[in-house]
């Protein structure tokens, strides 16, 4: 009895902590919660959304934002064929190993290469972007309070500035971005990309897809993690139940 109360107490505590953290995240970002295929205990990434999201990343984001921690080969984990991945990787040129003369030439990218960043270094990135630095997107979902909802908010949060607010040259008003002034112009527009699967490429659809893709880029282990988690917890519930019975039997002569 006392044990049950203790467990309940701990569980409630953990839950209430969780709720308050979620609320805090929501407050900070002010971005409305979206429905995500990969949320919840059994969530998995919607494969079609991942594919479309990659198309958005490649067509829209990759001009300024790197994805340096993800390798081209990783795309095979989300349904791209080896042939497709080789073709995608070969679209970029990367420096090769020094040749026999010691010169470094470019070679086409390989599946084992990481995504090539659009700029050679931070200074080049700033120089090309009015002094602003487009962040690498590999971990962006984990690196922002509010995560996927926040990102979705920023993607879709471009609005005319409220009356009286002056938006400096080269900046843009965004409802959900901290401080509301963002250097990035609204990245998504209706039909900004042509989806290969024929889905209508509304800006909202693109936002949903690219955030799904970036969620995968940040947490490629998510599906395996949740699958394993369900099994581990079921096992532990059984084990703990058996241990409880064992404990009761061993203690029977003491009580």
């Amino acid at each position, binding site marked *: *009895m*006392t*044990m049950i*109360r*203790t*467990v309940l107490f*701990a*569980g409630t505590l*953990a839950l209430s*902590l*969780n709720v308050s*953290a979620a609320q805090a995240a929501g407050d900070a970002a002010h971005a409305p919660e979206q429905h995500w295929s990969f949320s919840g*205990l059994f969530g998995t990434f919607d494969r079609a959304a991942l594919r479309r999201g990659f198309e958005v990343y490649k067509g829209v984001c990759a001009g300024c934002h790197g994805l340096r*921690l*993800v390798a081209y080969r*990783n795309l095979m984990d989300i349904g791209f064929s080896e042939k497709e991945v080789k073709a995608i990787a070969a679209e970029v040129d990367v420096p090769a190993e020094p040749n026999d003369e010691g010169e470094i030439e470019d070679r086409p990218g390989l599946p084992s290469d990481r995504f090539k960043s659009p700029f050679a270094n931070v200074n080049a990135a700033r120089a090309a972007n009015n002094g602003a630095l487009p*962040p690498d997107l*590999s*971990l962006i979902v*984990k*690196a*922002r*309070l509010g*995560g996927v909802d926040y990102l979705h908010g920023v993607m879709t949060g471009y609005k005319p500035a409220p009356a009286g607010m002056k938006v400096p040259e080269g900046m843009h008003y965004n409802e959900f971005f*901290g401080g509301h002034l963002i250097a990035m112009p609204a990245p998504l527009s209706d039909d900004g990309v042509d989806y290969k699967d024929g889905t209508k490429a509304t800006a909202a659809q693109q936002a949903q897809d690219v955030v799904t893709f970036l969620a995968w880029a*940040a947490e*490629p*282990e998510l599906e395996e*993690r*949740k699958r*394993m*988690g*369900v099994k*581990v*917890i079921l096992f*532990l*519930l059984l*084990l*703990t139940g058996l*241990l*409880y019975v*064992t*404990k009761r039997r*061993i*203690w029977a*002569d*003491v*009580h």
Partner: protein
Amino acid sequence: MAQFQKPAWLDNSLVRWVDHRLPIFTFMSHELYEYPTPRNLNYWWNFGSLAGIVLVIMIVTGITLAMHYTPHTALAFDSVERIMRDVNYGWLIRYVHMNGGSAFFIVVYIHIFRGMYFGSYKSPREILWILGVVILLLMMATAFMGYVLPWGQMSFWGATVITNLFSAIPLVGDWVVTLLWGGFAVDNPTLNRFFSLHYLMPFVLVGVIVLHIWALHAHGSNNPVGIDTKGEQDVIPFHPYYTVKDMFGLGVFLILFAGFIFFAPNFFGEPDNYIPANSLSTPAHIVPEWYFLPFYAILRAVPANFIGEWTTAWMGFILIEAKLAGVLAMFGSIAVLFVLPWLDRSPVRSSRFRPMYKWFFWIFLIDCLVLGYIGAKPAEGIFIIIGRVATAWYFLHFIVVIPLLAKFEKTKELPKSISEPVLGGGGGGATGASAKPMEKA
């Protein structure tokens, strides 16, 4: 009835051969099979062994992580991401280690509050308690340095803020800070020595824990009633009774632990630490890991405007003294624990028989939670005032309330023995029913 018997395997000839030369089996038998433990320990007594198991989990996952981690400022962040993405089950090992740090503190804080509630620090267990406080300090140092290793933004800026605290020490402060840094700023030498020490300190921790358990086994566990055991009827052997109870507790713990690892692995973390360290860009709010928040609140309570401007403050001479006061308060909040056995001279250990202390215990617990809440908030407005009041109460509790209670509190009558309430109490699974039904027993 419980039997104190040497285990049958002690008669095995090979065991006997070894034992004659190295009496390790006799030792095991003595400390587990024949070790008398009060029969009335409740589930709050699970957290000591649980803490030990968490430490083992931390050491095993930590050693594995070290096989793949690179302690260099240019490579550390990416090496952690390599572990997350390319090392087989690297994400699992790292998430266990990451959440294990938080779990360790949860378990140990419960263990400490249990000691406070049931007066486990009192004679003859003062040294046991002091060793426990040493363990807490070592844990804090280890956790702090471990948090620096991924070399994210919070790693870097947390390291900068905390190491700068030492500059408040008069005369040698700057020298100490330079020594910690291995240079003139938090940089590669800092990361290298933190990695080295982070690997070393858990083993120092193991050493102190051995002493902690040694001291424990000298007089055995305290118990919820807080009176000494008086013979066979009050005690049961540790094995199998408490081994199985601890195993069950471990199961419950692992379920919760797995919940975080698999379904909310970044629950206790800061998003900013997934941004690589950048010495040119300060995060908007530098917050330590949650388990340091109460102490962070105490640090900031003294000159409350200091940490907000710490970037300039650590260079500014005038603010040094205010800073020293904050640092002293923070370290004092742990130092006061060392002398708790002498501040509390009440002869009654358990709160069950201390009607006033019991209330002050809960107030103190709430005070610590309030401090934790304040530690997470920016130092501004009402938070400053609440932080100061809560800090003042933290010290008043130890320095004024506890000594006065020891003098003036009218305690309840103690039962004659542990077995009296247990055997006399009206059945059921609950232990100890003499004085009053327990809230949390």
